[in-house]
């Protein structure tokens, strides 16, 4: 057997070709299906972007209307999923556990993969919102088909129609994080369908991976830091104390980008618009001064490493600005990323290539069996 070379974390290995997203870590660019992320976030609706990922082209007005309608008709939860979520809420399980349960209990077997994808994208917001309503001791708000995707997600949380500025901010966020190559959750989804399994299995796996703190867990801690800094008014002290303690500064540094994450730039302007709209009541100002201090200090503290603002930093500001509670930051990320997950699955299914790596054995060899009594 060939002794395969060891690549822990496989970060320098491309395991598949993809037509979905092109990440240039050195130059800090992210292109989705040929279109820069900034252009998408500034111009597209969530549904439009979803259509682009699914179909590799931008929809015409009629195509978009048809697609929006289709998506909106798949929002309802099956009764058994509602029951499950209400019981999970009674036990106060982690929201991501609730999402995993809800997705795992969907029943799409036998449907074509592309239909499974639409259903998963459409229903995920309902799972998150319904669970959170149950947790608050309230009945879920039924989805409304005439509302658009982002609008309806907010509506299902509150029962009132959200303001356009808030919808725009959420929509820009959902577009900004819609896909990002083979992060761990997308990778597990692709690996699962590489066995020609179904999309429900794959997305359940992806939700599980996303739950892990090393993947997408930073916006919560970032928010806590910013809230503290907003009170103390001293970003410098905050940054310095983290750096002196030798801890990671949450919201900075990325596995792939050596520059400021292009999505951070998108979300920074979203946060700024939102801040203007709310007459400066968001954490944008605090975040922006914190970012300036942090970049400067990080450069001085780690001259050999490029630690720049990542997507999670401004995610905290935007989601907090639209009143998404921190416990729902990761589930809301999933509401967006499910588009990337499912599209990657569809791409994988076009030509499934079983992911079958090896591990290098470093344990003991050739041991003799000792009977129980002699151990």
């Amino acid at each position, binding site marked *: *057997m060939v*002794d*395969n070379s*060891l*690549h*822990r*974390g*496989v*970060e320098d*290995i*491309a395991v598949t*070709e993809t037509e979905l*997203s092109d*990440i240039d*870590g*050195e130059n800090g660019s992210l*292109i989705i299906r*040929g*279109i820069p992320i900034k252009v998408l976030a500034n111009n597209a609706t969530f549904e439009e972007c979803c259509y682009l990922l699914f179909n*590799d082209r931008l929809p*015409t*007005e009629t*195509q978009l209307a*048809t697609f929006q309608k289709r998506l909106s008709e798949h929002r309802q939860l099956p009764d*058994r999923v509602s029951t499950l979520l209400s*019981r*999970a809420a009674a036990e106060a*399980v982690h929201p991501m556990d609730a999402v995993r*349960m809800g997705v*795992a209990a969907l*029943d799409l077997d036998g449907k074509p993969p592309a239909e499974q994808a639409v259903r998963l994208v459409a229903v995920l917001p309902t799972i998150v919102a319904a669970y959170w309503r149950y947790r608050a001791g309230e009945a879920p708000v039924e989805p409304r088909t005439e509302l658009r995707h982002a609008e309806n997600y907010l509506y299902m949380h509150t029962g009132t129609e959200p303001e356009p500025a808030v919808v725009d901010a959420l929509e820009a966020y959902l577009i900004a994080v819609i896909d990002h190559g*083979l992060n*761990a959750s997308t*990778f*597990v989804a692709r690996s*699962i369908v590489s*066995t*020609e*399994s*179904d999309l*429900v*299995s794959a997305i*359940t*796996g992806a939700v*599980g991976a996303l*739950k892990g*703190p*090393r*993947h997408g867990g930073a916006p919560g801690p970032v928010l806590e830091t910013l809230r503290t800094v907003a009170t103390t008014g001293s970003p410098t002290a905050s940054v310095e104390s983290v750096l002196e303690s030798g801890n990671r500064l949450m919201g900075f540094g990325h596995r792939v980008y050596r520059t400021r994450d292009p999505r951070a730039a998108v979300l920074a302007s979203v946060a700024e618009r939102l801040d203007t709209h709310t007459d400066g009541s968001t954490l944008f100002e605090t975040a922006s001064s914190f970012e300036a201090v942090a970049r400067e200090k990080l450069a001085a503290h780690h001259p050999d490493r490029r630690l720049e603002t990542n997507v999670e930093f401004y995610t905290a500001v935007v989601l907090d600005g639209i009143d998404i509670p921190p416990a729902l930051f990761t589930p809301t990320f999933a509401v967006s990323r499910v588009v990337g997950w499912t599209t990657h699955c569809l791409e994988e299914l076009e030509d499934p*290539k*079983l*992911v*079958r*790596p*090896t*591990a290098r*054995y470093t*344990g003991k060899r*050739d041991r003799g*069996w000792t009977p129980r009594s002699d151990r």
Partner: protein
Amino acid sequence: MTPSIFDPGLTATAIAETSCSDIDADGGTFHVRGYPIEAIATKASYEEATWLLRNGRLPTTDALESFRTELANRRSISEPVHSVLETAAQENRSVMEALRMGLATATVNSDDTLIATSRVVAICPTIVTAYWQYREGGTPIQPHAAFSHTANIWYMLTGMEPDDATVAGLETYLTTIIEHGVTPSTFAARIVGSTGADPFSAATAAVGALTGPRHGGALTRIHAMFQHVGAVESPTTFVERRLTAGESIPGFGHSVYTGCDQRTEILKQCAKTVLEGHSDTSLLEAATALETAVHNQVGAGAEHPRTPNVDFYAVVLLDALAVSPPLFPAMFAIGRTAGWMAHYLEQLESETLLRPRSQYDGPKPRSWVSRADRDAAISDEELNPDTLAELANAFELLSEPSRLELLAILDQASKPLSYSAFRERSSIQDKGRFNYHLRRLRGTLIANVGATYTLRAPGQRIVERLLDGDITSSVGQTTDCDGEA
């Protein structure tokens, strides 16, 4: 970091250092924590093998006894899980779907990761058998703490106390397949573990990977084949027909072993032992006859594998143990859970995120086109008379081999072609005919920019769909070389 290596499927990559198990792909041997699989299969109880996988050494009698009690005490499943399983059974979901739903719904009242991994191992049999009882129209049989892990599986499945021979046979199956390196399902569990997520999420992902037809389907196909050669066709004729047609034989081939797989022989011997004194040994006979027929008909060095894989005799053994065929993949999952959890823990403890890269081969940067200006020559959604007429026109345009050839030439050219270069590559001799076909395609499928020709986006799509073989090639055959077992 720019990816330096392109390794689709990671088949040339070791993703971690492991001390769980060691596969000798050429020699066909397999060691778990340094012990030969044969010793584990014939000497260890499932609890003992699980403890070994977790701790790296064999347990003392006391350690084993307390582990056995720990697992036995974690077997019961909550009311919400029962409810999910009952619904799954009513809706006729497959056992693997039920297992996914059950595992995803299960929780543990502890933040201790080790306890959670024990719980995963302990509850899989309860989930599978509860679902099965619901499906058979009965009520689930509560786990019995006095029984061993394996005996309890049998008890929950049948409601009967199993005899020693049955427990031994089932236990050998479960311990033989308890672990096998970084298979796709184990890898899924490791990726989830790499993010720091919990064992239930990892096990659910692993089950998802096992749900694919490449795995569960293989066991079913092998079972169907055994019944077929027993009743319809002789093994020799069957093998000859399949090989002549260039088709693979279910149960042959493995993505890791180049020759034999030691575990096959273990399960074969075990099946023989279980079947001693049974009146119906037709499946075993069919299997051995097929094994011989393949060995005789496939020449050494031929492309088709000559020796059966672990699934082949697993089917004979599980059938001999009176396990229903729909449950086969779930029995495999029940056995493999301990391996998943050992790898999950190893990855978790390494604190290394598995985050590979991809190689972009999508469209080059394109500019934003406002909605009103978007080209909708061929819509996939509104099948109204207008768009159908457009579609028909497109097909009319394509119903000519020469035009397909012109599209293919442009697709294969790495850069835009000048008129002369384009004509030179075409097989159309007559200039008038060449010009005619080019004219028909220009503006719709082919772009004429300056003095050069390229494919327009719709032309590109058509070439990709039609000429790359999606439609024209025959349906590719699947093999059972799934690499999971």
